[in-house]
């Protein structure tokens, strides 16, 4: 098989000493930021993204991928021990994980989480390797109208279908699209919304947007809360992180079920792993009820940690596949990854596997190596990482702020970017304050230009006839799935409204 040969070649690049060093550094940094209380994998990627830009592309992506997965490994630690999940993807893990920790089985919960993350990631990455050529083949059938349908699907899914409030989700989407329109229009050469200032001709860097919304916005949000909220109680880790053979046999099906939930969701743009992790959690909960398991919901059951954690990392793994093969970012973190590719002048999608095979295959190979390294540095040393939870909050967020101004300045040594960072940070703060989701902003900012270009290209070909948008089976089925999703979401909203009215 082609894939196997390519992958082996990828391993030969990923295993060179220099790349291994990047891999280990990325894994350590990612885990560290993920473990730090309140910071999660999304923040890890946002803060460390600019740092990787000074490396060569292969090294940068290898390091970047291990930061991402490292963040995912670390996320659950603060959720389990402090009950403050670093990322929303770790919430479902925290439910049972924190119960186990309170029951004196913190180490076991952390160990289960690490193994779950490893298995979910491993299976997902393996499938990505073997299925991506088919995805690429599918993507070559895509023309302008189909790409526009894909982007529209992503916009609607993330802002309307899964959002708490449709209006607020769409506002976030509109803000993202507006940010993306600033700069020279590639097709006509017109300067748009630049106020005549040449500094804006290149547009607003997506990295400034991400760091502003996720990091600077978070610092301001923490400032608005820190003297209001008490500190969370940390539970000491004790016991052995390793699972006994009997326990392993118990949780293995939970790992598999979680992975099965996570895999498809990586390829659907619903904002990341909240939905699959909750699905996995709900399934384990129902199964425990059927078994008559009193641990679940009481003292904490390992299945409740295993399922969601495997689901979370499986989502991340297949999201990587969707990103590389289709160029479709399905979560905020994947959107940042796409921004990183663009920074190096590469456009993920079908052409990436052809033109940049020397980068894609080492990247995929490094995911395997990275997961093994992460398991090794996480499983036995979970209680060592937990020491990071002791970093006082005031130093932590002072550090985050310094890191974000540093990262933004490092992109282009531009003062304009720093002022933009502050403005977008204030925007992020306002959005956090009113619980407006930020993921649609990021997805819109990154996919906006694609959607616009493809829409105009399609309409130019058809000379303004809107019919071209629904002229192919692919785009029709994408719109059909979208309509179905909207319908389900309406039914669900109505049901809850009815339930609340009773």
């Amino acid at each position, binding site marked *: 098989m082609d894939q196997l040969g390519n992958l082996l070649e990828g391993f030969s690049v990923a295993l060179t000493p220099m790349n291994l060093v990047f891999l280990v550094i990325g894994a350590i940094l990612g885990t560290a930021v993920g473990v730090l209380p309140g910071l999660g994998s999304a923040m890890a990627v946002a803060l460390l993204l600019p*740092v990787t830009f*000074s490396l060569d592309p292969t090294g940068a992506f290898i390091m970047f991928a291990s930061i991402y997965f490292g963040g995912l490994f670390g996320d659950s630690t603060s959720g389990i021990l402090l009950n403050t999940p670093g990322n*929303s993807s770790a919430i*479902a893990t925290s439910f049972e994980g924190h119960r186990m920790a309170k029951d004196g089985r913190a180490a076991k919960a952390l160990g289960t989480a690490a193994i779950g993350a490893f298995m979910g990631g491993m299976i997902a990455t393996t499938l990505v390797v073997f299925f991506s050529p088919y995805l690429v083949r599918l993507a070559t059938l895509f023309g302008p109208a189909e790409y526009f349908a894909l982007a529209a699907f992503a916009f609607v899914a993330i802002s309307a279908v899964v*959002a*708490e409030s449709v*209006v*607020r989700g769409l*506002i976030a989407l*509109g*803000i993202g*699209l*507006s940010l993306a*329109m600033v700069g020279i229009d590639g*097709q*006509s050469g*017109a*300067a*748009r*919304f630049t106020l005549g200032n040449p500094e804006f001709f290149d547009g607003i860097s997506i990295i400034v947007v991400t760091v502003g919304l996720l990091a600077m916005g978070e*610092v301001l*949000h923490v*400032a*608005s*809360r820190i*003297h209001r*909220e*008490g500190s*969370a109680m940390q539970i000491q880790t004790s016991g052995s992180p390793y699972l006994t053979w009997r326990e392993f046999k118990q949780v293995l099906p939970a790992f598999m079920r979680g992975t099965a939930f996570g895999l498809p969701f990586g390829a659907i743009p619903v*904002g990341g792993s*909240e939905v699959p992790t909750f*699905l996995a959690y*709900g399934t384990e*909960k129902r199964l425990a009820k059927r078994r008559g398991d009193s641990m679940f919901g009481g003292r904490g059951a390992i299945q409740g940690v295993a399922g969601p954690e495997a689901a979370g990392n499986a989502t991340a793994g297949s999201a990587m596949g969707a990103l590389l093969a289709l160029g479709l970012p399905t979560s905020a973190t994947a959107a940042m990854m796409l921004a990183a590719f663009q920074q190096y002048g590469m456009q993920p999608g079908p052409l990436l596997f052809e033109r940049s095979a020397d980068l894609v295959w080492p990247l995929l190979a490094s995911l395997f190596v990275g997961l093994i390294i992460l398991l090794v540095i996480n499983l036995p040393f979970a209680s060592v990482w937990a020491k990071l939870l002791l970093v006082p*909050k*005031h130093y932590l*967020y*002072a*550090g985050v*702020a*310094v890191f974000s*101004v*540093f990262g933004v300045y*490092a992109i282009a040594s531009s*003062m304009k970017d720093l*002022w933009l960072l502050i403005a977008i940070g204030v925007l992020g*703060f*306002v959005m956090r*304050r*009113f*619980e407006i*989701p930020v993921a649609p902003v990021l997805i819109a900012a990154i996919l906006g230009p694609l959607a616009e270009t493809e*829409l*105009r290209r399609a*309409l*130019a070909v058809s000379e303004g006839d809107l019919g071209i948008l629904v002229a192919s089976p692919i785009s029709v089925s994408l719109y059909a799935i979208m309509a179905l999703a909207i319908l389900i979401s309406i039914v*669900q909203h109505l049901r*809850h409204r009815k339930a*609340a*009215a009773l």
Partner: protein
Amino acid sequence: MTDSERREDKFHPPAGASPATTDARVSASEAVSPTPSWLAGRGELVVAAMTLGIAVFLTVGIVTMDVPEGAGSPGPTFFPIIVAGLLYVLAVLLAVQVVRAPRPVDGDSNSSRVGVSTDLLNDVGDIDTTSEIRVIRSTVNPKTTSKIGLTDWKTTGIVLASVIIFVLILQPIGWLLAAAALFWALAWALGSTRPLFDIGVSLIFSSCMQLAFSAGLGLTLPSGILTGVFSWIN
């Protein structure tokens, strides 16, 4: 039941159901003054105004745009017109929603992190309102219980001002001192009680970054007034 009450129920079990968890929003509603102002729960009008502002900015930009000759038809204003139209509609819809059903948001650090519909997550996760969601709420600082739902403008303002000052002084005085000053100011604003010790911490932090990234990775950081001192590094 109004929308806001429903929301509250979703996150919060009836009082007494969970003695172990301090419930931020309940204390917030207790703390509201006897005659709450009309604006209570309607602060989100700021967002509607902001959305409207962006829409107006886009409109002005569209009207004044120099469209080069020979630009194809759908031209450069085509997409912005759609986005601006969408934003006008959304700004009005949000304003109407907020005026009709005020939404008290307590800004809890943990619950506001979730960007996904809680209804949806409750459904797929088989979650009942009494058990899981509440476990991820933050605790309340006993000293400021009465203000839990309110934004701490003083600290936020100090942090924002510190970042602005950092940007202003970065080039004149250089990364090392400016970043140390930023770190120190933020640590102090966020509750550090050892300002003298912090001076050391911030200087070590900013010089480590300078060393790692400037000397190690070759990124250029402004050296400012310390130019001479740094010449040996670069």
